[in-house]
């Protein structure tokens, strides 16, 4: 049987991906350029008995999301820049209380209201450092409509598997462009559900690490009763200020993601084997970069593309390896050098990083990238 195909916008694909992953709860607040996700979910969720709620603001949406997720539902919210800023305190709550959920953030020009309809890639640091305190961060950066669909499913899988909020962040171009998408059959892509307790309610502790770094999570209303707080807590969920517990818990929460980075990280290498110049690019920018690499190869320039699909955790070790073979990295990005800074942090000064940084709402085109390659000595 031929597979179902459609011509979809990135945001619509995200909603469809969420539904494939088993999302049953959506809480959001409208904001350009992400609103289509909410619109599709408001239509589709009630059809399958799921719940959609439009809250009074993004803080409320994030709170309702966490509340819904605690009842066992796979939960999604969608937003963009200013909304992401508002959600930050409660993203931290999701991290410390270890509540799985997915935050779909379309990157538009910032700071503040910035350029609501202009593309940007300037929320990647907010994805890692936006909420205060040490905490785990997972952030995915898809580059096509098909990838938005598949990475949204993966975002849910990672959230459920690691019991933590996961962000998926297409830039505005990816979110709004229309492309052909091929839908997987049911069961074709793995769908992961959170581990629920195997012990009876009397013995259940929500942060019991005897099963590993990711403790099973019971649902409110499923016969288990337990305490959830944003304070540092003991394995039984109750607050503590005891140094040894606080230290161990915070380290575990970060380790649960960093220690499993190999499972979470995903990237694509294109013509990197013999590359002397590697363009590191993600999202829509990576599409220009791929074109530029092809053109450069025709001109005899040994260029390659390194494309992070998971942005956090960042593929540090692989870039360090590649840094030993290249003359230079090029970092085209729709911000003032955030990714370049991250690359710099992992390549131990082995190669220069040439940046193409645009925050004028215009995409970076292949010619700009090829010109930059020609600057490499």
């Amino acid at each position, binding site marked *: 049987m031929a597979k179902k195909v459609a011509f979809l916008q990135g945001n619509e694909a995200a909603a469809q991906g969420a539904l494939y992953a088993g999302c049953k709860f959506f809480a959001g607040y409208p904001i350009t350029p992400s609103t289509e996700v909410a619109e599709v979910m408001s239509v589709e969720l009630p059809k399958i008995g799921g719940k959609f709620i439009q809250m009074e603001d993004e803080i409320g949406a994030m709170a309702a999301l*966490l509340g819904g997720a605690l009842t066992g539902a796979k939960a999604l919210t969608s937003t963009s820049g200013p909304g992401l800023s508002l959600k930050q305190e409660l993203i931290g709550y999701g991290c410390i209380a270890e509540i799985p959920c997915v935050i779909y953030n379309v990157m538009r020009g910032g700071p503040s209201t910035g350029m609501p309809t202009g593309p940007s890639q300037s929320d990647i640091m907010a994805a890692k450092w936006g909420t205060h305190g040490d905490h785990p961060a997972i952030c995915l950066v898809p580059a096509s409509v098909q990838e938005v669909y598949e990475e949204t499913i993966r975002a849910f899988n990672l959230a459920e598997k690691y019991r933590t909020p996961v962000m998926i962040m297409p830039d505005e171009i990816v979110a709004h462009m229309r492309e052909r998408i091929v839908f997987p059959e049911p069961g074709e892509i793995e769908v992961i559900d959170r581990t629920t307790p195997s012990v009876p309610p009397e013995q259940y502790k929500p942060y019991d690490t005897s099963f590993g770094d990711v403790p099973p999570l019971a649902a409110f209303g499923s016969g288990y009763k337990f*305490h959830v707080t944003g304070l540092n807590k003991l394995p039984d969920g109750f607050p503590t200020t005891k140094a040894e517990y606080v230290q161990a818990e915070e380290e575990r929460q970060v380790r649960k993601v960093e220690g499993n980075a190999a499972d979470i990280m995903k990237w694509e290498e294109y013509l990197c084997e013999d590359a002397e110049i590697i363009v590191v690019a993600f999202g829509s920018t990576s599409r220009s970069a791929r074109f530029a690499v092809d053109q450069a190869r025709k001109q005899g320039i040994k260029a390659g593309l390194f494309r992070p699909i998971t942005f956090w955790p960042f593929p540090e070790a692989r870039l360090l390896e590649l840094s030993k073979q290249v003359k230079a990295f090029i970092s085209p990005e729709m911000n003032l050098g955030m990714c370049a800074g991250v690359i710099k942090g992992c390549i131990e000064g082995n190669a220069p990083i040439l940046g193409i940084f645009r925050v004028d709402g215009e995409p970076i085109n292949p010619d700009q990238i090829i010109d930059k390659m020609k600057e490499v000595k």
Partner: protein
Amino acid sequence: MAFDYDKYLRPNKLPHIWCPGCGHGIVMKGLIRAIDTCGLKKEDTAIVSGIGCASRLPGYLDFCTLHTAHGRAAAFATGVKMARPEMNVILVGGDGDGTAIGGNHFIHACRRNINMTYIIMNNKIYGMTGGQFSPATPTGDKASTTVYGNPDPAFDIAKLAIGAGATFVARGTAFHANQIDKLIAEAIQHKGFSVVEILDDCPTTYGRRNKFKSVIEMMNHLKETTVPVKAAEKMSPEQLKGKVLTGVLYKEEKPEYTEEYAKVIQRAQAAK
């Protein structure tokens, strides 16, 4: 017979963190008795709070308890209730938590008329952070950030709830302890968003600054400045001057949010 609170308390959590004479403990006991009256099952009941002294309450109760972030209890609770309408959802918190930082979520929960009960412990101050004024601090009162007297007017929380669309609104006091459980029980049994404001006392950060020599004076003040709505009907405007009404202040039947959403599901499935 002494009421058996232990049945609902988590073992080994007492003594609680509240100061000597803090009214939050009196409210917690009233809530427990109300839950007992209503026969709510522990595993089917979520108790949700924000941040503040009052918001530490859920930690003591043996239910599904969710101690959220400052001001966000109503929004978290809305998520819980939407996702599992069959659960009983009770919110607790202070006046600052509920009407300052959480004011937006509060009025919208009222507007939706979602079937939950919100108990606001109004001690007219930010207790936990050491006594800064709240939106419920009367004009002229002293707080750590209004040493020259509070220039801000105060909210009437019950009126705010009524104005925003809550369909059951009651007020009690920490002094009238035997009323608290009755008001809360009636609120829980009401279908829709119910608000119970309990005029409370914070001897540590409010009483001290506002010339109350002891918690006893604060309790007496609650007694002297309040009048049950029934009694007020027979009183003249002069007699009612400076008095605050207690009892069930407002009650109305209106469509409930999760039931309305169930109809949305029906319509969506019919159209499929």
